[in-house]
Structures are given as C-alpha cells and as structure tokens.
C-alpha cells in the first residue's frame, strides 16, 4: 500500500497539482512513520525526501545535490523488471534529471 500511495503523490505532481502532492507526502510520512523508520525502507524514505525537495524548491532539479541524492537512491536497489514497483521511482527521478519522458527512461532501465 505504501507504494500505491507514493504513486498517488507522483500522479498529482505530474498533473500540475504539487500542493496536493505535498499534502499526500505529509500524510504518507505520518501514516507510515513506523514503517519508514525501519532500515529496509530507507530507499522509500529517501524518495519522499527527494520528492519534497522537488516540490518545495524549484531550483533543486538543476542543483548538484539532486544528482548526489539520485546516485544514493539508485545505489540502494537495482531495478528488476516485473517487481512490485509498477511505476519505476528511479526512472521517474532520472526523467527529471535528463528532461526526457518517463517511458524513455523506463525502457533504458528495463532494457
């Protein structure tokens, strides 16, 4: 369910509603506080932090720290096609970095 709710935040952000996306992220953090504090969910925790930064700071996407955060995020787990990550979080973040469509980056990740 955590993933499904994170997808919700991504969808609203992409649908030009960053405020609601931010509201959803706050809700997720609160609802899954216990889960997100666990070590095995550090990847998801980092994703939420990155997304909050994207929403709150317009210059973050062009900043070096985004690249650094993305590298850390990608290092957590290699993408395996057919996993439960129906929307690849890594491909989505990379699409923001390379300014390409999500699907182009998804094909690079899955191919």
């Amino acid at each position, binding site marked *: *369910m955590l993933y*499904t*709710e994170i*997808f*919700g935040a991504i*969808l*609203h952000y*992409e*649908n030009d509603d960053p405020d609601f996306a931010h509201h959803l992220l706050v809700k997720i953090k609160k609802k899954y506080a216990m889960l997100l504090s666990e070590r095995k969910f550090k990847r998801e925790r980092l994703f939420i932090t990155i997304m909050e930064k994207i929403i709150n700071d317009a210059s973050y996407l062009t900043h070096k720290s985004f690249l650094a955060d993305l590298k850390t995020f990608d290092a957590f787990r290699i993408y*395996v*096609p*057919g*996993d439960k990550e*129906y*929307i690849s979080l890594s491909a989505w973040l990379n699409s923001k970095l390379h300014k390409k*469509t*999500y*699907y182009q980056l*998804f*094909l690079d990740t*899955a*191919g």
Partner: protein
Amino acid sequence: MNSAIDDMILSFSREELRQFNYFLTRNGNTDKVNDIKLIQKMRKGTSAQLITTNAERQIRKRLKEQLEQFSLLDNLKYNVHSEINSLLEVSKFLFRKNLHKHAWNYLIKAEEMASRNQEYEQLDFIYNIQISYSSTVYIPNMSTPEIQGLINKRNKNLTLAKIDSDANAAYALLFYEIREQLSKDPYFDIDVLINKVFERFSLDSKIYKSPKIYARVVRVVCMALHEKKDYIQQKNYAMTSYKIMSRRKMLDRIPDELIMDLLFSIYTSAIKTKDYKIAEEFIAIYEKKIDRFKMQQDLYLNYHVTGNINAADLFMFTGRLDEAKNRLQMLYKRYADQKQLAKTYFLIRINMLALYFKYNEFSRCIKLHNEMMQEKKRKALTYRRG
C-alpha cells in the same frame, strides 16, 4: 473478521452467484426474496438494515445450510475426489436397495475414475467395498481367480499409495533443505540434494522415471529459487527441465497444472533477468496451452489473468505500449466487479495505472488511483464492522 458465510458469498463470481440464486429457488423456496436481499447486502458491504437483526440471524442460518449443499453440488462439477465419492454413495444406496448389479456398475465406474486420477486412498476404499461385497450371491460373473485378482489389485494400489504419500513428504522436505542450503551457499549442487532427499524415502530411482514426480520436484526447486530471488538459476533450471521433459516425451503425461506452473516459472524468471526473447517464446506456449487444458474455473481465471498481465508487462518492457493497452483493457472489461478476483483485479488496475502513466495520461491515472484507494477504504470499513 467476516464470517464464513460472508466470505463464501464474496468469493462467488457473477456466474456462481447466478447459479446460487437458481439453487435457492429450487423446490419453491418461498423465502428466496429475503435470502437474495441479504446476499446483495453482503456483496455491497453496506450497513443499511433491510431486515431486523433477529430475522437476519434466521436468514443467515438458512443461508449457511443452503451454501453447504450448494458447495457439495459445485464440487461435483470440478473436483474428481467428490465425483468419485458421489459414485460410491450411489453404489452404497443401490446395495442397500438390493440392486447389486447396478451397484457393481457404479463401483466399477468409480474404480476406473479413481485409477485414472491416481486417487489411491479412494481406490483402496473401493477395493475394500468390492472385496466385502464379492461374497454376496448377486455378483455378476465373479469367480475365485477374480477375487484373487481383486486382492492383488488392492495390494498393488497400496504400494502406489505409499509411494505417493512418501513423495509428498519428500517434496516438503526438499523445499526446506533447498532453502537452508541456499542461505549457506547459493551455488550448491541442487541435483545432489534432490537425490539425497529422495534416497531417504527410497524414491531416488523414481524421480526421472515418473513424469509427475519429476515435474513436482522441478516445481519445488523453482519455488525455492524464486523465493531467494535467484532468477538466473531459476530460469536455467526450469528451461533445462522443460527441455528434458520434452525430449523424453513426458509433457503429455504430466498434470496440466504442473505444466502451466513450469511455463509460468520460465517466463517470469526470463522477464526478471531481462531475457525478453525467451519470455515471449514461453508466454506464447503458455497461452496456447491454457485454452486446451480442462481445469477448474477458478484456476483457469487465475492462469488466464496472470498470463495476460505478464504478457502486458513484457510488451511494456519492449516498447509495445499499444499491445499492452489492448491486453489490460480486455482484462479490465472482462473481470470488472468479480469479487472473487479482488486481489487480481487490483493487479489489473495498478498495471493499467502504470500503463497510462507511460502514456502521460495523468488524469486517467488519478481516476484509477482514486478508485483503488476508495475500494481499500471501503474494504477496511467492512472488515472493521465485522
């Protein structure tokens, strides 16, 4: 927690619900209207009181009996075990009525069916009835050598039953041994371990001779490797086994479910290791076989949905979005509102969401997402209400 009646009603497909409604109307059941009202209430998960609590309790009690009888009849359609049992029940009835000739016909029919489906325990029961009734004067053409033949058949069946039961124990042990070995050394020799486990039950010589045992061993190994996420080894092992089975012409002698599981194991591990060519080849074989096999409706639905979802996944990974869309839309239309497929339906929708996201159709994604979240919320409320 829901009661057994609620869960049974929720597990019905539209077709089963229709059949159950017909079943309720049999013998001029006058309370049918209230029964159907209650069923609709359960299916919707609403709290609207259509009837008083006391009346509801009475209807539930009656529904429980009806459901139990309905499940017996439904089992007869798909479950061989029940079908054999029903033949035995009829034969017992006929023996009681002194209609021995007809009773024997039923017994022989049951024996054939049990033997064909390797139901050894039932077969033993049938032979015991045959032996006990062989002393009656009404037996058609039964002589002493025939009775001896019957006893021999029974003894042979007992040996087979023991092999079957030992093999079941060996599969369970094998699964846990592989699990343990994988945690110690991921590159250990699986075949050596299989032989070691089956040797304990004196079955090591039977593994490669019996197609059914071999197929089940392969299934256990693939399951253990999948659990450990060793997809490369899983793919190689499953493919090699499939080739061996095909070369030795075993495929026709293996139960349908085991073949489907093997094919499923090959193409899912191929997708996970990004070997899309192999995945496509085996999904095609899987889809060709699925309609040819005669299997239980629920099982068919599961195989059908998972096959199509995986095919859609494969299309997405290889840049064929339109083909993926066609597949998922077909599933979405076909399985909408099928309560017994709630989990699978969730899978269909989340895959559609991922698909529309690739098309950048975000408002459609949000609509689907809201639908899914509302369903989750409604379900949580229904369960809380108990």
